[in-house]
């Protein structure tokens, strides 16, 4: 029985083992890989544009300074 069990498992494994090297292997792998080459991945997402935020910050800073100037010039 034990021999039979061993035999069954090994028979299945016989087809599982293969690292054969011949002239065809590399070609076959390249062909296989090429069959799944598709369009390149979607373009990388553009980095968030920062300029509007820098302009917004600059505008805020100018308005803030102008407000302080206006407060300083206001007659008592």
């Amino acid at each position, binding site marked *: 029985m034990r021999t039979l069990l061993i035999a069954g498992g090994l028979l299945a494994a*016989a087809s599982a083992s*293969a*690292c054969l090297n011949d002239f065809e292997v590399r070609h*076959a792998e390249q062909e296989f890989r090429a069959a799944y080459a598709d369009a390149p*991945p*979607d373009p990388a997402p553009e980095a968030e544009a920062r300029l509007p*935020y820098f302009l917004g910050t600059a505008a*805020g800073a100018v308005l803030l300074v102008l407000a302080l100037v206006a*407060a300083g010039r206001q007659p008592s």
Partner: protein
Amino acid sequence: MTRARRLVGVAVVAALFGFLGLFFALGEAFLSEGRVVAEPAPYRVALMPDGTALRVAMVYDVVHQRFPRHGPAWSEAVVARSIARVEQTEARDPAALFEPASLEAFDDWGVALDRLGRADEAISVLRRKKALVERRWPRLDFPPKAAADAVEAYIEVVRRAGALTPAEQAWYRTYANLGTVLVHQGLRALATGDAEGRGAVAEGLGFVRQAVRLNPAAHFGRERWQLVVARHVRAGLDDPTWFTRFSAIGWPLDAPPPKLRPTYRALPAAVRDLVEGASHDLGERWTSREAYIPRVVPEPEWAEVTGADFEGAPFDEPVLGLLGMWMLGGGANPHSALALGQIMEAMEQRPIAYAAYARALAMKDRFSPDAGTVRLIEALVRGRMADIAGQIDEDEASLQAAVTVALAEGEAFQQAQADFEAARAADGADVLDPAVQAAFLAGCPPIASKPGQADTVFIRRGTGAWRLHRLVMWVTLWAAAGAWLAVWVARRRARLS
């Protein structure tokens, strides 16, 4: 009100509004819908720089035999050509047999014989080649032990793969081919009750280990997975219940596979750069794969008993190893089908997992000749299949029908290729001429499936994605608004008084 008090008052109001602006900015960031961006899945970064990266469609196709595969006529032609080359070389100049081109003819000859099921002849041819290699390069220095640091060890392996000496190439191919053919022959012998097959298996595995030592990167690591599967099967020699407990990747059969599909919140640009070939940084390649590809980790008991050199690996490595053995080796087998089914289920590729399990069941008698063992394995696999059908709300009849149709198409394609080669060989054509293969492929629709979106991850950006520059802008604008409000109130109060 003095100027100083006015300025302080305006500054205080501006600060308070700036503080409100801080909350506004954070709220805006967290409540915004964000946008979904598509990124290549990290496993599209191949282990080796020039290697094959996994696509899920590959698993579907291999499981359904949907790939080109040469028939016996092609292998017969390889045998005839190799014999002619060796004989011509020997007649012209026996010393030329030691040249790499002649040695490779022995490899082609032996491998083709093995593919034709003539393992005894294959061993004889490859032992003859080994004797030639021993005479030409009697001394072979194995590479020193790899560096302790994983990244450095990986870089060493990659660089070494591209710089094997002629002696190392010759020995590597000899060890790999002779080892594999010996394992094939030993396993066939054991299957017929011939206990001497054990010796051939042991000798063959020893040679394969030497091949892996010489060139661990070869064939995208397929040899490594051959050793893992062989050790799994060898463990079954000592424990008849082994195959009812574990698959060839060391996962238990009596429990659902672990989840392997992570939800990525972000992926570094390095992953995309490596996939697109914009980066060739080996360290990045290794660390990106290790950091972002889910790992297959075997049960400790399995790892201890098999002694396999496999404590865990990014999941695409065993998948590609199993696919390679299936396609370029002996074809479909239940161990590979079962392991692929588990990994695909873990990756939530449920229809493919179902198909792989169905293939394992179709070959169930090859797990063991013991009916009780087979029944137990079948019950466990059917349980997984029923779970999958429930998860995707499909009835099993339609899932099974889909497997049957796809498999029939794949088998018909491979049979057509074998018939085409046989017919051309009968006509006297050289079936090894690439033009003959091209003619066959041109005459039939492509058998490979489209990869589609299965290898893309979708990441939601925006939600919670606050950035300092956005925060500073809102704080400044709110502070400015507060300051002008304070100025306006102060002017109005001054006017009224």
